[in-house]
């Protein structure tokens, strides 16, 4: 019970801790700093582009895109190799059949 009362008092003290607070003031010469910032507000297109490219989200998206393209290229290359093997086998078979035919119907 004692701890509860103690904590309740701490909570009430915290809730009321803003009482009597003075308003915070900004650092001196705010208008000067503000004017300088507004005067220098212009940004070149290169700087804007650089700022966009440097964002982590853009970098990650770019890396994923490159990985996806690599995967697509690898996959399509594997498919071509299989087709070539099949064509080679078929050609070999045709040659063999042709040879047999010529042998059976060969010169008499």
């Amino acid at each position, binding site marked *: 019970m004692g*701890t509860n009362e103690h*904590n309740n008092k*701490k*909570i009430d*003290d*915290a*809730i009321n*801790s*803003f*009482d*009597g*607070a*003075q*308003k*915070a*003031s*900004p*650092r001196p010469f*705010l*208008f000067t*700093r*503000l004017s300088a*910032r*507004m005067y220098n507000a212009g940004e070149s297109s290169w700087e804007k582009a650089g700022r966009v490219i440097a964002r*982590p989200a853009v*970098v*990650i998206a770019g890396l994923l895109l490159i990985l996806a393209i690599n995967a697509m290229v690898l996959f399509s290359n594997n498919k071509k190799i299989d087709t070539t093997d099949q064509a080679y086998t078929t050609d070999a078979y045709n040659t063999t059949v042709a040879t047999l035919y010529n042998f059976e119907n060969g010169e008499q």
Partner: protein
Amino acid sequence: MNQGQPELIERLQHGDESAFRQLVDDHEVMIYNTVIGIVQNEDDADDVTQDVFIQAYRSIRYFRGEAKLSTWLYRIAVSKALDHVKKKKRKKRFSFLQGWFGVVKEESSNIPDFHHPGIVLENKEKASELFAALDQLPDNQRIAFTLHKLEGLNHQEIAQVLNITLNAVEALMGRAKGNLKKKLQEYYLQKDK
């Protein structure tokens, strides 16, 4: 200040630089104090305060005078401060990714460590704990509480800033206090372990 406001607004809308200077001088404390209560960092508050005045400069031509100039500025301040807080929290969430690209990570901590420059000395530690609890509240409760306790706005003025009813503000304040007590209780129990 209120009597000359229509004239000031007209001069601002015509791009009068001295009018803009007057706007900044008249409202810089109000804006900075509001912003620092939300972003809880002096350097960030300075940047966001500048953002507020830049936004005001760009948008003043759309100001129709339906609300007071101060109410309009408070709205911009609250919006910019909340945007800044959200951006910082997003950066924190993705900080592990930033590490991959060699970006130096800022140290982040949930321990109360913000000291508002205007809080009296004997209340500084308690206020720091309250700010840490405030940081965990939903935005609307946090804003209502900050505007009332730090800026000294009454409920009617808060209703105008947030563009909600007086009853809604009172409900927000009730929920804010309830949630703050809960968060502080959890914190003190954790601290005592």
